[in-house]
């Protein structure tokens, strides 16, 4: 799931959008901070998505 999310992060150009937003705000995001933020996005969705997918499937998921 995490891999899928990371792929989607690339597909939707999240990195570029973060940089663009930072420029709009007159701030700056370093490469390290950007990486950490992207990690955060990935983790957030990686946590949320299996729950939703499982709930929609309606069958138990053995963790």
């Amino acid at each position, binding site marked *: *799931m*995490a891999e*899928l*999310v990371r792929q*989607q*992060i690339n597909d*939707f*150009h*999240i990195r*570029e*959008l*973060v940089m*663009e*937003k*930072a420029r*709009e*705000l*007159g*701030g*700056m*995001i370093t490469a390290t*901070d950007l990486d*950490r*933020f992207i990690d*955060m*996005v990935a983790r*957030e*969705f*990686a*946590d*949320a*998505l299996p*729950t*939703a*997918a*499982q*709930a*929609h499937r*309606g*069958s*138990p*998921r*053995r*963790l």
Partner: protein
Amino acid sequence: MIKSSDGLKEAIAKIGKQGGLNSRMSLRIAEDLADICERLATSKTNVEKERLFRTVMGQVGRRLKYSVEDTLDTICEGSYPNDLFFVERPVSIERNKYETYIRSLVSDPFRYIIGPVEILAEKSKETGEDKFFPVFTAFHRRLMQHAVGCLKHVFEPLSIGVKRWTAENLAAYDKLEYLEIWRKAICYAVIEILDMNWLLITENTRRKYDYITMDEIDDEVGKALAEREKHSVQMMAKALCLDRKIRETDVRAMRRQIETAIAIQVRMIDEIARSLEIQTAELSSLGFEKLRKRFKCGEEDFSILKLRRDPEVELPAKDRPDLRLDLGALKERPVETVFTLAWAKIVAARLATCPMY
């Protein structure tokens, strides 16, 4: 590529939608993350940024909130997720201590509900950390499904299945606080069941009776059947969580079940209260003593029950736990209340599968 200032939020939301999250939840996550991005971009120093990361990642209950909201949405859509616990060990706690801790949390209330739950430990492929999984066996799941099926008409809004624990929100409570929530949850859950049964039973009969005995209920059931007014009988069965068609020959069995159900419920709350060392004063504050009086249940004699409507011990509306079953309102409730309702389901499951039935 989206160029607008809101593009980041939209793009993040798309990730959620594509992964199967509903729109509202996807947007909520996206808004949070876009806000974090903004705060990150405008932080002046590395210290501020570091603090932001630490704060955000340690934000208590954020993911749990998402999970609960998503579950509620799922219920609205008509499917029932299964109960799962996800327990991840905080890095700062030694494995042995943590396992003991989790076992104490998990097995204690379950001792009276579905028995001890096996706990497995596995290494996370992503982080290498140990994760502990209380394992719900096929029996547990069947029990839950049976309960949900039996109680759907009464407890549908209680069917909150997914409780998702992460290191962050688990670490947010110390053990006493945590147990306190569970104790209260169990108290409320059982009271809710008692109260709901009582209210539904009386709702169907109070128009005709001010004073009810089992024999009178039995007579009334007989009359209703004779008059082919099966609706009222079915309603009574529903009130007692017995989702089955009532035949004439079932009437006496149903009467026994009424007595047994109430006896079990009263006995259960006594046992649970005793095992969790819930003080009499605490039970009293929750209205249990009044309920017990209302059901005329002594502590020792559960076999002979008289169901009476006694105005002197009628629980005033203001004293009843406010657990009206309203999904809209539920979304506004604190997390503890959601736990309460989840536990109500589990207690109900225990009742529904009691061997005495």
